[in-house]
């Protein structure tokens, strides 16, 4: 398909492109390339001498051309799948590619992908110098012009705020209690996000200095003047519990409320039915919980969710569990029980439960055995000679 003709693989080019990075192009870090295998590659990739094939591939027109091709390709794909091209979203594209090119590769990043060129081609800076070879930016020769220019700008703003404060002091209108910028619920940009914004690499020290500078700006009483500048470098924190899935409340024939939930830990799966208006009994696989878990530790794990929300004697719990060992089974039951209990709780208690760690599924699984070692970590006996 003409539309499906891919372009060069970004990473390969950039790897060779970086050899010349010092003199020509300031490119982004290689490490976080979205390694995407385009549908077909052109043979010009395989050329070793890429001096001529340097920056042209990533010029503005090139990117624009890629975008057009992508859009056309999207429409063709929509037609192929029999869907409406106007309302064909990226999710639909992913779904269709997965259908048309099924891949069994384990590495998700190695599978076929069709994404917008902005996501595929890393952001690049344009050429930084003019015809005469003189760089445009006055901080070009620092090597990290965007970063230093940012620091310079922020410092300039700080000086402006100090000047404003001095003026107020002269007039006698200076007061300590002014409106401060609302910082609750937001966080500073992470180092990766800052790098993305500046389109250049910065070191940990640089990032730390940047944060220091911003904090110093905020510490001044009249920093509210530069609010938009500060907010540009802050991101909102999401409220985690809004993403929590609460199982729906169901009613059985007698009218008693109950809820069902599933939990997993290592290889054990547990499914729990929590019925309201009970006497605090717990049945697991038809047996008593005392019979099932003779060890106190396992029973304590079961008791923890109920005890935390103070509903020990209220529910009748019927559970079934399989797989894993005794700890895994009790952990799976605990998770399933916490999830089932969420239905009966008010929202703020849901947040408490989440913060108590009852709703986090334990990601620890058995580590694989490595070749050349006896077990996952244990090595064979080391012989000096």
């Amino acid at each position, binding site marked *: 398909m003409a539309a499906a003709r891919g372009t060069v693989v970004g990473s390969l080019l950039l790897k060779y492109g970086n050899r010349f990075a010092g003199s020509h192009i300031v490119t982004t870090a290689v490490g976080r390339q979205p390694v995407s295998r385009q549908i077909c590659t052109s043979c010009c990739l395989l050329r070793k001498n890429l001096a001529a094939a340097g920056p042209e591939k990533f010029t503005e027109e090139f990117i624009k051309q890629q975008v057009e091709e992508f859009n056309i390709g999207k429409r063709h794909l929509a037609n192929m799948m029999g869907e409406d091209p106007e309302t064909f979203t990226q999710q639909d594209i992913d779904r269709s590619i997965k259908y048309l090119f099924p891949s069994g590769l384990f590495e998700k990043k190695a599978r076929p992908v069709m994404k917008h060129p902005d996501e595929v081609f890393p952001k690049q800076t344009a050429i930084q110098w003019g015809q005469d070879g003189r760089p445009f930016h006055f901080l070009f020769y620092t090597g990290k012009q965007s970063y230093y220019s940012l620091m310079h700008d922020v410092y300039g703003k700080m000086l402006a705020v100090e000047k404003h404060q001095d003026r107020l002091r002269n007039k006698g209108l200076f007061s300590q209690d002014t409106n401060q910028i609302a910082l609750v619920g937001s966080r500073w940009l992470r180092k990766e996000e800052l790098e993305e914004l500046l389109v250049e690499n910065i070191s940990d020290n640089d990032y730390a200095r940047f944060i220091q500078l911003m904090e110093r700006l905020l510490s001044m009483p009249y920093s509210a003047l530069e609010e938009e500048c500060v907010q540009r470098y802050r991101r909102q924190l999401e409220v985690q519990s809004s993403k929590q899935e609460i199982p729906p409340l169901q009613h059985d024939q007698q009218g008693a409320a109950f809820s069902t939930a599933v939990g997993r830990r290592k290889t054990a799966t547990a499914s729990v039915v929590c019925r309201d208006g009970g006497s605090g009994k717990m049945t697991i696989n038809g047996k008593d*919980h*005392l019979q099932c878990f003779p060890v106190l530790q396992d029973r304590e794990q079961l008791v923890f969710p109920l005890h935390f929300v103070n509903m*020990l004697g209220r529910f009748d719990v019927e559970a079934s569990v399989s797989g894993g060992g005794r700890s895994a089974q009790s952990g799976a039951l605990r998770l399933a029980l916490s999830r089932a209990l969420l239905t009966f709780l008010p929202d703020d208690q849901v947040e408490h439960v989440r913060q108590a760690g009852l709703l986090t599924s334990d990601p620890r699984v058995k580590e694989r055995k490595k070749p050349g070692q006896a077990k996952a970590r244990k090595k064979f006996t080391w012989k000096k000679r």
Partner: protein
Amino acid sequence: MTLHRLSLRLRQAVSQARHLHSSRSGQQLEALAVEPELPKELSFFRTRESDPACHADVHMGQYYTLSPVHLRTIFPHGLPSRFQLQMKTFNETCVMVRQPALELISHLKKADYSKPAVRYMFYGVNGCGKTLSLCHALHYCHTQGWLVLHIPDAHLWVKNCKELLPSSFCPSRFDQPIEASQWLRNFKITNEPVLSKLKTTQRYVWTKRESTEEGRTLAELVEQGMSRVRTSSDVVGALLKELRLQAGKPMEGREEGLRLAVAVDGVNALWGRTSLKKEDKSVVAPEELTLIHNLRKMMKNDWCGGAVISSLSQTGSLFKPKDVFLPQELLGEDGFDDMDPFVPVPVSNYSEKESESCYLYYMDRNWLQHPHSRTEEGKKELLFLSNRNPNVLERLCASH
């Protein structure tokens, strides 16, 4: 001395618990209403009635105290080891009055002793209180003047035996001198007064030089067994035979005749497997042990004038999985056929009232150290974690 102080402390417990158990007996209510300086019916988890014959449904869930005298006589070897530790710690012996024991005592009161002996069997999950119910029933039997033949744990006779002598009486059988002599010692402590009134009916020859003539008292027989350890197993056999013959017969000092209570804890050991080995490393079957052989004869209901009270036990049993507790499973085919017909008495975990009572008892004894376990939530947690099983609850409270 302590009773007065006790009442002051317990008044709090009483006022807390009063609203929960307002449907207590008339005895309790009038006692609480009177509220004198002397402590009367202490609190609802204790009762002053220490005679098992007078225990009734009203006392269910309450603890009654065993006097030290009775303790030394009746139970030199009968009580479970954890209970003995508890006795030592609390400096008193308190047993809870529960429904299975009361049921058994009522059966014993109403039984016809001219008919063959009825066999009762306590069964239930591990740690639900079978042995203590058995001891409660035995206390009743002893206070009624019966002769109590109590084998505290039949499992002890089929495992971990240091010495196995080939029996002189029958060459294919094995004797256990140490166990037999120890048991005879304890038996004598329990039944001394009655034994001196009973006489042997035949002559027993132990060795070339020793014999017991006809008409000697059974106390002498027991002495003989205790001193001559080698023949103690045979003495036990002879003793059992004598008692079987004389049960129900008229006796001096008793109009209704001799009543015999045979109490065996862990009766499933008689028909299970042993962990003992002969010299050629082959396994010893239970029938090949003299003590077990004689005891099996005792368990048959071919004698009158008494009762056989037994309880099953998985805890000490050999080669049985952990979760079996039903008579069929623990006794096996042979055992069930031998014991059939019997009256099964199920023992279950604590009911709500009983668990409440147990918790208050531990609180009263200052046994619960953790401050959280003294709150209402702590109590719910304890009861949930132990699932109201008496043994598990006791262990849990001991560590909290």
